């Protein structure tokens, strides 16, 4: 009939067009269905949800009701004292749905700094050396040297007060502190793990400054304060720092003289792992270092200055490391003679060039070297495992952090006759059998009762 109306050619064309349209529509529908099945279509749901709804519609939730009844009977009839707590609180026992940030409650007001006063870490102290030596003389049971060449060291590290944004971040912080606990136990070093923000103005990388000052002033018995980032791990458990070398110095950082003083390179030194002696010089340095820190306009402006003055620095707010480079490069005469830029061993070791070589190191070298052959510290700069965004792919960072941790942990476990099954494995295997004469067994690295840990006569040295 249509043929007779329109003529054969046009009719055929229309038919063809119709066929094409049919195919197009069909393909479109198929695409939508497949997409909905794979990535879901928001509020329109997925086929699985459809099936659920259908099933739920036809099968009333008998299944779920019965076990719950059983549980309730047990709870009400039981002799446990948890039942009252559980039913009273009314909350679920499932951590799946729990939001930790709901429970934090901050009482009182935030401290508001006076905008007219320039920032200071605290009232200026000018006689700290005298105060400290007086105190040490009055307190001989708290000497600042615990051995002839061994100063009392406090290792300071820390992390933010709240849980990490990255779900596995806290697990890596935990492994990192365990790693530090192990090294410090072997070397007779005390640890302070900070989780408090002492000064809201100096938040972020600057938070260490008020903390360091507070600790220096509260612990006069401490000779050296060793700041270490939470993303740095010990990978040479046998290496003891060469304290003798630093007798005349007050600040020890990993870095290169040429890169700092000549090139003004912003990564000429690293403030992720450094030693600071407890004396007046250090307090003065902190006071000179701090002014670029206060968050907001000051830090932004300072950042611009630093980017302009230092080589290779990207544009971002002022950080403590760049500020230190700038400080040393511009005031070398004041500070330079008491600063030791160490590069004979990895007081800070950039992870990128180290982590792939661990197996090679195990084959060719041994712990106790501390340098490129067996790094003292592997520092995961830029990985930011606690935050959401790092400078490197997350998987590489986390995998390598596991390897570095195991590399260090193996040196501890071998003391007790164990080792990790591989650098990637959390499991351990025995490498030395139990014996009925355990004291005759000597561990290869001599870390069980190392010389640097032996108790010696305690003397005061200023």
């Amino acid at each position, binding site marked *: 009939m249509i043929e007779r109306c329109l003529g054969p050619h046009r009719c055929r064309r229309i038919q063809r067009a119709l066929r094409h349209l049919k195919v197009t529509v069909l393909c479109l529908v198929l695409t939508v269905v497949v997409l909905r099945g794979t990535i879901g279509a928001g509020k329109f749901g997925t086929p699985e949800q459809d099936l659920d709804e259908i099933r739920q519609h036809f099968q009333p939730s008998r299944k779920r009701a019965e076990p719950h009844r059983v549980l309730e009977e047990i709870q009400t009839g039981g002799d446990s004292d948890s039942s009252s707590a*559980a039913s009273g*609180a009314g909350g679920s*026992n499932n951590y799946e749905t729990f939001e930790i940030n709901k429970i934090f409650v901050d009482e009182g007001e935030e401290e508001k700094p006076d905008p007219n006063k320039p920032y200071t870490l605290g009232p200026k102290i000018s006689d700290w050396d005298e105060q400290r030596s007086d105190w040490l003389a009055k307190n001989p049971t708290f000497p600042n040297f615990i051995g002839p060449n061994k100063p009392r060291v406090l290792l300071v590290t820390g992390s933010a007060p709240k849980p990490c944004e990255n779900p596995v971040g806290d697990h890596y912080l935990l492994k990192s502190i365990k790693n530090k606990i192990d090294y410090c136990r072997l070397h007779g070093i005390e640890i302070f793990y900070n989780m408090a923000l002492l000064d809201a103005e100096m938040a972020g990388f600057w938070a260490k400054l008020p903390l360091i000052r507070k600790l220096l002033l*509260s612990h006069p018995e401490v000779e050296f304060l060793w700041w270490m980032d939470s993303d740095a791990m010990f990978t040479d458990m046998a290496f003891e720092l060469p304290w003798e070398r630093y007798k005349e110095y007050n600040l020890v950082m990993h870095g290169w003289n040429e890169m700092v003083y000549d090139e003004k390179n912003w990564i000429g030194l690293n403030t992720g792992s450094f030693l600071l002696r407890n004396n007046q010089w250090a307090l003065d340095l902190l006071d000179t270092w701090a002014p670029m820190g206060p968050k907001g306009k000051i830090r932004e402006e300072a950042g611009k200055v630093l980017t302009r003055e230092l080589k290779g620095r990207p544009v971002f707010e002022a950080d403590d490391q760049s500020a230190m480079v700038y400080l040393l490069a511009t005031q070398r005469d004041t500070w330079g003679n008491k600063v030791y830029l160490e590069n004979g061993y990895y007081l800070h070791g950039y992870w990128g060039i180290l982590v792939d070589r661990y197996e090679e190191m195990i084959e060719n070298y041994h712990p106790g070297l501390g340098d490129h052959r067996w790094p003292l510290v592997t520092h995961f700069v830029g990985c930011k495992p606690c935050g959401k965004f790092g400078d490197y792919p997350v998987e590489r960072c986390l995998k390598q952090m596991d390897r570095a941790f195991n590399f260090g942990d193996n040196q501890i476990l071998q003391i007790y*006759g164990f080792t990790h099954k591989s650098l990637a494995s959390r499991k351990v295997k025995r490498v030395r059998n139990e014996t009925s004469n355990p004291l005759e067994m000597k561990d290869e690295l001599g870390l069980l009762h190392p010389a640097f840990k032996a108790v010696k006569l305690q003397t005061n040295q200023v």
Partner: protein
Amino acid sequence: MVQDALRTSGSGGGLPKTAVSNGGGRGRGLLLRGWQVQNTSMNIKIMILCGFVTILVLLGTVSFGNLGSSNADDAVNQNLIKETKPILAKSPSASVPNDLDLEEPPKAEVNPNVTYTLGPRITNWDSQRKVWLNQNPGFPSIVNGKARILLLTGSPPGPCDKPIGDYYLLKSVKNKIDYCRIHGIEIVYNMAHLDEELSGYWTKLPMIRRLMLSHPEVEWIWWMDSDALFTDILFEIPLSRYEKHNLVIHGYPDLLFNQKSWVALNTGVFLLRNCQWSLDLLDAWAPMGPKGPIRDEAGKVLTAYLKGRPAFEADDQSALIYLLISQKEKWMDKVYVENQYYLHGFWEGLVDKYEEMMEKYHPGLGDERWPFVTHFVGCKPCGSYADYAEERCFKGMERAFNFADNQVLELYGFSHRGLLSPKVKRIRNETVSPLEYVDKFDIRRTHAEAKP
């Protein structure tokens, strides 16, 4: 076909037009039929293709094969199982959850006919140790007048089931670092399963033995669960009280011997002297531990013997209680059941009272007025399911942590802005003579005498 038809008509030569038209008409008919057949075949092809694609899509999304139970249903079942297990299985202090055996197939289980041992039997440990101490004066067992203590704690090697668990493990270890720094105690944080057989709560046994034998200079090994927090930073363990004892554990003798209760003692926090007696105790304690049929069978024995114990596999606490009751004469004279201070303090009755304590009392008491240790039994922050409401657990842990942290921060002039706040506030202004406050507030210089 059409061509043939035309050719035949063409080759026909001077056929009349009718013949041509006839051939053409027949050709057209054939033509039409050809078109129709092609059409139909194409329709059929499209239909088959569509049918195929639909089936593929359905297979992918709905799992055609098992319409009986979908993924969601499985998830619900799993949740139910998870719910019932802990309520039925009220374990006291499972701080170390089940081992993670994901990388390798499970090893063959221990032959139940062969008694499990922690290691080759040692019989002269006391004399071995004495000789070693004489030969190594640089590692004495008494330092600054106090016996050398090693605090042992730990957690599983992998991340917790929920990230919040790792956060609290981190705070818990900071709390222990603070206490131990102030009191000169070394810490060993264990994250390795030394013995696959003794997994879960039993992991501590091989580790304790290993540390004792490797560190003869250590006089006491102090085990502490990861869910136990120090809440009295000033209090020190009155070691002089335990000179004649080798095991110090919190509990109640009445519950132990008269009622045979499975919570008569708490093995979440205890001290064990480094001596032959302890090695013998560990050897006697371990046999109920090996996982599998041994642990299950032992669990049944313990449930039958101890009052109030639910049915679940053998745990170290019940096993120790059983051991001490059934072999009372052999062991009890060297065991000090301590309850004058909270060597272990059950959290539920304590966490709400911190403000009252701060108002009325002071650190250094260690007992119900200012508990030495607050132990979050049953909260299992590292697992995914607790025996108690999680809000109550976490609020309690946060409060206990801050309660303790305030005592540490006092030296530095700071305090938390409330027991639920991670933020701190200044409570003392900076000064140019900080040492007067050091003299006043440094805990190491103001040790309180423990209650006799």
